[in-house]
């Protein structure tokens, strides 16, 4: 979970808790009001206003205490845990609350004090005295009226006794005593009435009559419709209750009502004094608490708004420092803090991207290293296990690789250097080859080395290939592969000689049969003494001589093959050599035309002229044989990719594909009567020159023998 969502969740929790507390308080207040005050009149002392004020105050006090307590506890915990920003938050909060609470507290106490003094002043002695004296005056006035009414009721009782009087007498009594009413009751029933307006005089309440009957007298004060007051004094006389009524006018009654109302209001206010104080103090307290609550809330919010981004920044910085580059500030901030947060997030993102790129690069490098290491180990294993000697040289001629096979083949020690090779004459060919490659020339065909040691001669085939330079212009190294061909050469030699022996035996056996038959025929005729013995002897000896000559030529040919002279390379004019060889076949066959085509840039090439001439003769001889009665033979000289190229092309019957692999073996021939040594001799001469020979089809017909010799 991110920091922002955590904060939002906590804020929602707080709001939920606060909402629940407020709801509980409001419900509690409402239930209390409804339950206790449903049937109560709404007065200032016990009215809804005071209840609402009280419960609002309680709610605010609880909420304020909750907020303050929570804030203080949280701040304390944060300070204990040394959370960054807690000290700043504490200072900010204390300052804010102090700046708010001190003036508002002073204002509250001052205002409530002033208010209480003002309320006390309302109930000061002069006011109380004035109201009290006015009420006393009213009391005395009323008492006089009541006494007057009571006296007149007693007078009526004395005059009329307990008998109901005649109406005229009662009216006379009323007028004489200037009364408004005079009545007589028996129980609760009126038995006589005399009044100015009888219809306006109601029956006295039964309670008053009962009380008068019980106590002897009672009084009833009535407020009439026109505002005047009527004072009815009741006096019991036996079973009859006499009631005399005195009336005062509306103006006087209004004054008395005003005095009574003022006295009543004053008394009410006096009684309500604590409630008024409570209501006013509650109002002030409500305002004070509301301000304090708002200030605590705003202070906390402000402190949080400032410290949260700072704390989040510090936390993210710490995470960054510990290597967690995915750390971001998830707090929304505004103003300069917002810019700072945004800059920090951008920086963290940049760092993370760079780290990711570095990691990817490192992974690729590691993968590459692993692959290279695997290849290196594979190569090392291969180099350790192969019988082919491998030497590698860098651009400066230093030996970088020398496998055990190379050390064994070249009899090298552990410390192998180019000087080691140069110091050994038998390796001169290898050194020359390396010099050629390092000199920038294309790699030549493999060369053979003959090393003489205690185990005898050892033949090595050496091939050199250049390495691609690391950078353009840098000297390139090369790799030398050394193959021990001693046993191959030996086996080839054995096989060749075995084949030669078989061939010689075969070729010798063929002429022996006619020789034997001629000898047997001569002997038979001689023993028989026949007449044609001389002819037979002549014919037989001729056959024998012919076959012996053939045998001699055969032996000579094999002798030549066996006794190929040591190669003596010398600068040779190759076109002249070719013309010399071709001249031998001029007129050999009428229908066959032989020509030389020279495209060499440089005519002089270092070769053994005798052997190359011999090879050309063999190839031209075979070409004439292949052409038959007519054809064309072209001896071409040109510059090849590795040196010079000699081509002998004919338009003869060509070489079957199946015969091409065996073409240069000593026993192979497509002629009816040949030794099969011609192309073998050519192949050996070319090999002695470190060259190659191959055969291709000539278009449209015929064969094409291509000899490539290194240019030297």
């Amino acid at each position, binding site marked *: 979970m991110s920091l922002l969502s955590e904060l939002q969740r906590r804020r929602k929790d707080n709001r939920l808790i606060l909402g629940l507390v407020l709801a509980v308080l409001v419900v509690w207040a409402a239930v209390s009001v409804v339950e206790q005050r449903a049937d109560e009149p709404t007065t200032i002392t016990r009215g809804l206003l005071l209840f609402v004020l009280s419960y609002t105050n309680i709610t605010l006090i609880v909420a304020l205490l909750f907020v303050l307590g929570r804030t203080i506890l949280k701040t304390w915990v944060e300070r204990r845990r040394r959370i960054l920003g807690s000290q700043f938050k504490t200072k900010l909060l204390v300052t804010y609350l102090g700046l708010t609470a001190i003036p508002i507290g002073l204002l509250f106490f001052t205002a409530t004090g002033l208010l209480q003094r003002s309320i006390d002043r309302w109930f000061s002695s002069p006011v109380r005295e004035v109201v009290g004296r006015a009420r006393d005056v009213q009391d005395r006035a009323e008492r006089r009226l009541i006494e007057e009414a009571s006296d007149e009721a007693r007078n009526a009782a004395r005059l009329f006794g307990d008998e109901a009087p005649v109406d005229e007498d009662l009216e006379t009594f009323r007028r004489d005593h200037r009364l408004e009413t005079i009545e007589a009751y028996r129980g609760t029933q009126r038995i006589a009435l005399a009044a100015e307006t009888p219809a306006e005089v109601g029956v006295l309440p039964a309670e008053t009559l009962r009380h008068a009957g019980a106590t002897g007298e009672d009084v009833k004060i009535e407020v009439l419709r026109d505002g005047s007051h009527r004072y009815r004094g009741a006096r019991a006389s036996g079973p009859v209750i006499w009631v005399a009524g005195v009336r005062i006018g509306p103006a006087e009654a209004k004054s008395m009502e005003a005095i009574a109302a003022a006295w*009543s209001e004053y008394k009410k206010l*006096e009684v309500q004094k604590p409630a008024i104080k409570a209501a006013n103090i509650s109002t002030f307290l409500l305002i004070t608490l509301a301000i304090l609550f708002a200030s605590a809330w705003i202070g906390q919010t402000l402190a949080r708004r400032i410290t949260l981004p700072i704390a989040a920044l510090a936390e993210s910085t710490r995470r960054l420092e510990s290597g967690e580059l995915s750390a971001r500030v998830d707090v929304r901030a505004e103003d300069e803090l917002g810019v700072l947060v945004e800059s920090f997030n951008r920086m963290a993102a940049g760092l993370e991207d760079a780290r990711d790129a570095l990691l990817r690069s490192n992974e690729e490098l590691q993968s590459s290293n692993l692959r290279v290491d695997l290849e290196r180990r594979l190569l090392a294993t291969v180099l350790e296990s192969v019988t082919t000697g491998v030497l590698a040289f860098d651009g400066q001629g230093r030996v970088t690789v020398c496998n055990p096979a190379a050390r064994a083949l070249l009899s090298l020690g552990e410390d192998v250097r180019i000087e080691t090779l140069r110091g050994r004459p038998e390796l001169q060919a290898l050194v020359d080859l390396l010099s050629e490659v390092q000199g920038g020339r294309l790699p030549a065909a493999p060369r053979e080395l003959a090393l003489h040691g205690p185990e005898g001669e050892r033949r090595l085939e050496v091939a050199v290939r250049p390495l691609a330079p690391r950078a353009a212009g840098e000297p390139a190294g090369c790799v030398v592969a050394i193959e021990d061909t001693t046993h191959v050469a030996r086996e080839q030699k054995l096989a060749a000689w075995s084949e030669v022996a078989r061939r010689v035996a075969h070729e010798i056996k063929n002429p022996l049969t006619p020789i034997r038959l001629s000898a047997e025929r001569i002997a038979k005729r001689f023993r028989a003494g026949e007449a044609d013995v001389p002819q037979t002897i002549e014919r037989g000896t001729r056959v024998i001589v012919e076959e012996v000559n053939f045998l001699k030529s055969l032996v000579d040919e094999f002798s030549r093959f066996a006794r190929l002279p040591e190669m003596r390379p010398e600068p040779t004019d190759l076109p002249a050599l070719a013309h010399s060889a071709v001249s031998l076949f001029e007129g050999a066959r009428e229908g066959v035309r032989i020509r030389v085509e020279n495209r060499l840039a440089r005519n002089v090439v270092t070769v053994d002229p005798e052997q190359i001439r011999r090879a050309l003769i063999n190839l031209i001889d075979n070409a004439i044989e292949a052409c038959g009665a007519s054809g064309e033979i072209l001896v071409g000289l040109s510059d090849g990719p590795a040196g010079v190229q000699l081509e002998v092309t004919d338009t003869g019957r060509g070489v079957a594909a199946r015969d091409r692999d065996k073409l240069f073996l000593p026993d192979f021939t497509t002629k009816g009567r040949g030794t099969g040594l011609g192309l073998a001799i050519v192949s050996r001469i070319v090999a002695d020159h470190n060259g190659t020979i191959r055969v291709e089809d000539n278009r449209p017909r015929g064969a094409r023998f291509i000899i490539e010799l290194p240019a030297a």
Partner: protein
Amino acid sequence: MRGAARAASTLLVALCLSPAVSAQEAAKPRIESCHAEARGPDVFLRFRLDGALNPELATKIEAGLETAIRYDIRLYRHNAHWLWDDRMYTRRYRVAVTYDPVTREYVVAESLDGRPLARSTTREFSEVARRLVSRDNLLVFRVRDDDPHKNLYLQMRASFDSGYLFTIIPVDAKTSWKESNRFEVRSGP
């Protein structure tokens, strides 16, 4: 020594405080008597409240402010074999007094569950005081035929304005619940 001194001082404080506590306990309003009587299905109540009419209340009445005492009355059936008794009915009897400074009469209004019960006037404060704190023959409940008729009793308490908590929170004084005698209702003619 120190422990003994502390115990002695605690005892002394307790002894000093006990008369005050007792006096306060004695002055505390309480339902002195609560007697129920069944006449047929009707249940009548007679009660008396002591200690409620203090000078503050009297002053309030004299000032012309309506002053009321509320009585919460509950009818229970006693369960001898259970943890609590069954509450059957609840009533609120209210007596309110208002003084008219012009006519100099006290108007006493009685109501039961908000319905007017009686209204009377008097000029005697003693009569007002009597009506506020006592009542005879108050018909409070009518037990139905399908209600339990035996092991019944009443509980009642009085509540009235008393003052302010922390000078700003108005609070009501309430007496403790007073239980009446057990009675039995006989239904039918």
